[in-house]
């Protein structure tokens, strides 16, 4: 039979491994083709590692301020140290700078102090901290060789706080708020989208109308109003969770739509009918036959939903209705650039905004790649 001939031909071809490949492996093959998505994924991985070990990676305590270094400009790391005799050695350092005030205008101006260098070392001792609030440590990834000295790779703010340390510390809140917020949205979305798609009828109609109305509402005014309802005296942790709840209360609709849409289209698939006729119970049909086909789509949708959460937190904090100082998030840091004067004095204060941009871009690339890879069977078949 020619049918079987084809079969044995497949057996000996390099495609034989593909024949045994599960959906995750097929998706991985597809995803790998998507270079930008892989790149975005790596960036996000790095950001989460930074968020996890923020205290260690930040060179200084993000709250330690010094009036000497108000609006200190960024310094460049130099790796080769030339000494006065003309010899050189490998010693990473930065040029120390000093604030001089113009006597007449009182304008500050930083000038290099000749011959003074701040040497840096890996894993040096610096400001003490508690990693994850538990382990007392004082080693930092990079620290000044002479404790007490300071350096500003990305400049300082109006209180002389190190922007690099603050941005790194902000990574933790900003990156995690997206994750926690999306998780909450997903729970709401799967619950409502799932029952809407499964039971249909009146429940579906109610959920659908709710989603439509929610989508038609402008999110920022709602978020603002809800955030304004939070008492100002709540502590940082409470505010953090309140904000994630506020974000997800408004942001669940898109995920619910994805879940419901997939559910409905999968319900109509012949293989789901076949599973029913095979005698499978409700739960077996859902968990064995429908859910595995949905997870990849949900993961992609979640990845694309995270950046919106991050941007929303940034906007809320920027307006003073989200997290409040002394908490540190990218949005809180951007509070510093709300007025023209500070922007002019320290354009490097935009840095957290740059981080938001990079993060959102990376998530979008990753999400696009995941979405394209989510259905490895779409282009095959006929």
């Amino acid at each position, binding site marked *: *039979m*020619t*049918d*079987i001939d*084809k*079969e*044995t031909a*497949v*057996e000996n071809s390099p*495609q034989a491994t*593909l*024949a*045994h*490949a*599960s*959906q995750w492996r*097929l998706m991985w093959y597809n995803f790998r083709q998507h270079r930008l998505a892989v790149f975005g994924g790596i960036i996000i991985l790095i950001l989460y590692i930074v968020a996890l070990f923020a205290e260690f990676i930040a060179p200084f305590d993000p709250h330690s301020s010094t009036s000497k270094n108000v609006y200190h400009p960024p310094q460049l790391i130099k790796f080769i140290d030339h000494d006065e005799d003309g010899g050189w050695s490998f010693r990473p350092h930065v040029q120390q700078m000093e604030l001089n005030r113009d006597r007449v205008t009182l304008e500050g101006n930083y000038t290099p102090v000749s011959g003074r260098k701040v040497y840096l070392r890996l894993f040096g001792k610096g400001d003490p901290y508690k990693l994850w609030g538990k382990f007392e440590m004082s080693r930092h990834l990079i620290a000044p060789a002479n404790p007490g000295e300071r350096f500003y790779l990305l400049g300082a703010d109006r209180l002389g706080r190190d922007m690099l340390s603050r941005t790194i510390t902000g990574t933790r809140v900003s990156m995690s708020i997206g994750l926690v917020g999306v998780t909450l949205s997903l729970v709401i979305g799967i619950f409502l989208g799932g029952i809407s798609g499964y039971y249909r009828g009146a429940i579906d*109609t109610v959920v659908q109308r709710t989603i439509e109305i929610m989508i038609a509402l402008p999110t920022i005014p709602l978020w603002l109003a809800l955030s304004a309802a939070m008492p100002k005296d709540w502590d940082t942790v409470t505010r953090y969770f309140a904000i994630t709840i506020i974000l997800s209360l408004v942001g669940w609709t898109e995920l619910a739509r994805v879940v419901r849409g997939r559910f409905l289209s999968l319900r109509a*698939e*012949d*293989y789901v*009918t*076949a*599973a*029913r*006729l*095979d*005698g*499978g*119970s409700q739960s*077996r049909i859902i968990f064995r*036959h429908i859910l*595995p*086909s949905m997870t990849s789509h949900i993961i992609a949708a979640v990845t694309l939903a995270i950046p919106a959460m991050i941007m929303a937190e940034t906007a809320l904090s920027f307006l003073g209705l989200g997290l409040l100082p002394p908490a540190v998030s990218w949005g809180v840091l951007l509070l510093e650039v709300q007025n023209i004067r500070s922007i002019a004095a320290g354009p490097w204060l935009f840095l957290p905004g740059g981080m938001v941009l990079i993060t959102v871009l990376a998530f979008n690339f990753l999400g696009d790649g995941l979405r394209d890879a989510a259905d490895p*069977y779409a282009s*095959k*078949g*006929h």
Partner: protein
Amino acid sequence: MNDLSAENANNIVLEIKNLVTEFPTRDGTFRAVDDVSFSLKAGKTLCVVGESGSGKSVTARSILQILDSPGRIVSGQILLHSLRGIASDADGPTDLARLKPRSNIIRSIRGREIAMIFQEPMSSLSPVHRIGNQIAEVLRLHEGMSKKQAWAQSVNLLDQVGISDPAAAADRFSFEFSGGMRQRAMIAMALACNPSVLIADEPTTALDVTTQAEVLDLIKSIQAERDMAVLFITHDIGVVAQIADEVVVMRQGKVLEQGDVFGMFENPGHPYTRELISGARDLDQPAAQRLAARASRDIGELILTATDVRKEFTISKSLFGLRPDKIAVGLKDASLELYAGENLGIVGESGSGKTTLARCLQRVYDLSSGTIRYSDRNGESVDLGSLPSSQLRPYWRDIRTVFQDPFGSLNPRMTVAEIVGEPMLVSGELSGRDLQMRVEELLELVGLPASAAQRYPHAFSGGQRQRVAIARAIGPRPRIIIADEPTSALDLSLRAKTLDLLLSLQEQMDLSFVFVTHDIAVVRYFCDRVAVMYKGGIVEVGDSETICSDPQHPYTQSLLSAVPRPDPLQRGNTRVRYSESVD
């Protein structure tokens, strides 16, 4: 044939010489059309026949230079002999292959000198423009008519292609037309400038068989009227036999054989042509295997009886019950009997309710009214229609299904072993090593190697997938299999093989089949009895040979007379038309 066309019988209009068309891809150049030559004569029909991927469609598109990117003509000539307004004899023929795809000359030929109609009448018309405007556009472009003139002429053309109330039809949109009307509108558009060549690229493939017959008749009559040359692309050897004057057989971009239609059906030169013709003819008679089996064993007891089964679908639910729900009747009081060991066909066109009936028989759909009595192995009778759905499971093991689409019916995320083993696993009948052995046994029964078990469906072709689906169906040792068009997604060559497999399984396992199909030939081959459905009701039930040779109901007569027989000598059978104003 009238006198005019007889006079011009050898008048060559379009000549294709050594045409080569290629698609450069990343993995090298794909030669879709390889050294193809043929010529079209005025008033004659040339059929290009071949399976998908044979290059027949690309050949047609090369003529008008409307190839999909990145396709391009590499060499050869496409000579157009008649070019209105240009003294063709003085300048010689125009070589279309030399023209640039965007040049003014080729554009003035498209739609004017050479017109084309396509396979998908739905998607070939713009969904957002009125039919009249789409036709008028051609007239305004090539004939320079005013908006008003062109509209009037469009209405006139719609009238010529047999659309009733053409003035109203011109004002409508394509989605408001039926499939046959859309294809008529396409033909009207193609005829607008009275072209000398009509290229028809599988124009009836997406249509029901009765509609197909009407469209073919229309093309024939218009061709005779206007002395047009027709290039007809098809994969259906029956259609070829009915309409062709000359035939070109293509495979893998090459012409295998060409010649007169009568000669070729009488005495096919190439083995592939022989295979095509015999493949179609084999199916057009009762399977020897089935006849032999029936001779040795009689049909048994009544096992499934459907009585007055009615199924209504809610199209739109009214909010808060303010007005009655919109209801469509999918099935009107259908009654049917199935005996043990027989093959019962349910035949009908799209929308006739045949699939709905099949799903009701198994209680996949809940019935609106009626009963479905099934008598089980112990002879006890139960009404599946009124059973609570929680008690259906044991009966679903006795009555199994094979779906139409072998791509959609297998979960792509499960291995073949998991798919085939599922019914035995969920019933707790088998597990572990026993299950594995049973799966391998089932795969062997359907002719698949044991190594198939650990693979995923994407590793298999359509025919192999359908075998997997059959293995899943016979797993729980069922008594009845409801097969919903199990062969219509398969190539012609695989159809008979799959049907033979089902017949041999029937003998080994004592199966009865309910076989849903639109294809009369398959009914004749596979089914002992057949029920003919039309608009949700059963119009005729009986022995399949009797119905095929001596249909009683006018609809069955029209259906049978519309089926293109794969024999050019059986042309010109009087067509029976049937339409019933229902609702």
